[in-house]
């Protein structure tokens, strides 16, 4: 640390265009009232099976991470490699049932920056 303090950093600028490795989605699963709520592992299974149905084994092989999951509100943050965003999103859109009951994934926000999901001005209630 002492070494670093010796010389002040010189100005440097890096521009990264479309370089994000991952895309992040904030989603909420909507289920009819009552009935079983999925655990986090079941949610992941549901996501993978949705991908498998629409995009086959190739889709199911996409690395998808469930970064957070709140079982109370059924909301989660998903991470997927950038090239798989459209596939994952469309699979979630066209998913219609969970355990033979209707369900819907609401995609609340997507972003290439995880940090952007922390502050969404569209959900901000200021008054």
């Amino acid at each position, binding site marked *: *640390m002492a070494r*670093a*303090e010796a*010389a*002040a*950093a*010189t*100005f*440097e*600028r*890096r*521009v*990264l*265009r*479309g*370089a*994000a*490795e*991952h*895309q*992040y989605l904030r989603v909420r699963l909507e289920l009819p009232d009552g009935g079983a709520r999925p655990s*986090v*592992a079941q949610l*992941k299974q549901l996501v993978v099976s949705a991908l498998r149905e629409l995009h086959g084994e190739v889709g199911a092989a996409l*690395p998808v*991470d*469930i*970064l*957070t999951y709140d079982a109370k509100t059924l909301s989660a*943050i998903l*991470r997927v490699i*950038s*090239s*798989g*965003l*459209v*596939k994952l999103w469309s699979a979630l859109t066209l998913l219609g049932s969970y355990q033979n009951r209707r369900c819907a994934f609401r995609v609340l*926000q*997507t*972003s*290439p*920056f*995880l*940090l*952007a*999901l*922390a*502050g*969404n*001005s*569209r959900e*901000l209630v*200021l*008054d």
Partner: protein
Amino acid sequence: MSVPSLQRLRQVPRHLLVCEKGHARDARSRHAAHVRDHAYNCRVSFLIPECGMLPEVLKSTIADVGDYYLVRNLSVHELVAHEFIDAFVKKGSCYALTYNTKIDQDNTAALLPTGKLILSVDKDTYEELGLQGRPSQYSGKKAMRYIVTIDLTDSTFHPDSKKRNRVLWALKEKKPLEFDFLLAWYNTGAEGSTLMSYFSKKQIQALKPKITFSTLRDLQCPVLQSNELQGKPEESCSTEELFEWLGAVWNQVSLDNKSSSFLSTYCCPQPNMMVEKAFLCTITGFIIPEKIIQLLEQLCCYFGEPKLAYWLTLTVHGFADSPVSWRESEHGFHKGGENLYNFVIFRNLDYWLQLAVGTYDDCPP
């Protein structure tokens, strides 16, 4: 069709991340200018590792972030009235942004502290308004959105000028535009009438920014070296890694996963160190850049006394639906409307600045 449909499935929406490093005390450093140029901020948050209690100075700075106002059903022509211009626009920094309007669907208006009034309107409204503007950069071949910029402090915009009368007529009679506005005003010293008293006949509400504190225990923090933006393998982490990690912390993502884990393979970037505690603070509201600069300054002063932390971060989120991001560069909403920036301030007052924008945005300055 230039792009085959299969490739479209792999496309990533355009986005930019600009990383800079410099020294906060360098006279040529533009970091404060970047803060000043980003007018509309909805969330400011900072993270200080190895800090359990906030120093009093910082506490009072946060408390001083100041009120902002929400005026309901305010006609845009009221912002063009010369009483308003003389009382507020010319006497300080006046900020106004429409509230609860969506830039990709509705009309939006914003008043910049430079005295520029920016209207981002759809094609129908633009034609009815009859004011000179330009098609939006991001609305494709068939322009469906137009940007009208009116300079209120321009010398040709005096009370009797033809130009002003036309603007007033357009906004008053031709196409009256009404919005809920978020307003904030900053002036140094000189007292005068306040927004509250000026708009007392309107539905005006003074609002206080919401402030939340929290402390995290046993947090894995990446190791950073201020002069290595790209990081060094085994020695320090890069800016992108830090950016993702910071997102993970603010979203309460668990940081210790195995690569074989079924659920999540995210883990804290290497190398990292365990920090006993970290202090998190979030301010949400309509926060003006002047206050963020003050906060940034106080955060720099935090390292005036010897501290355990090697660095701290300050993150600012912009409004997704504001018509501008930095300065007057146009901002649009495609999928996320991101415009945010993050400072990492090191113990020796070197800083990293990360500016991130989404699809419909210019490269930040």
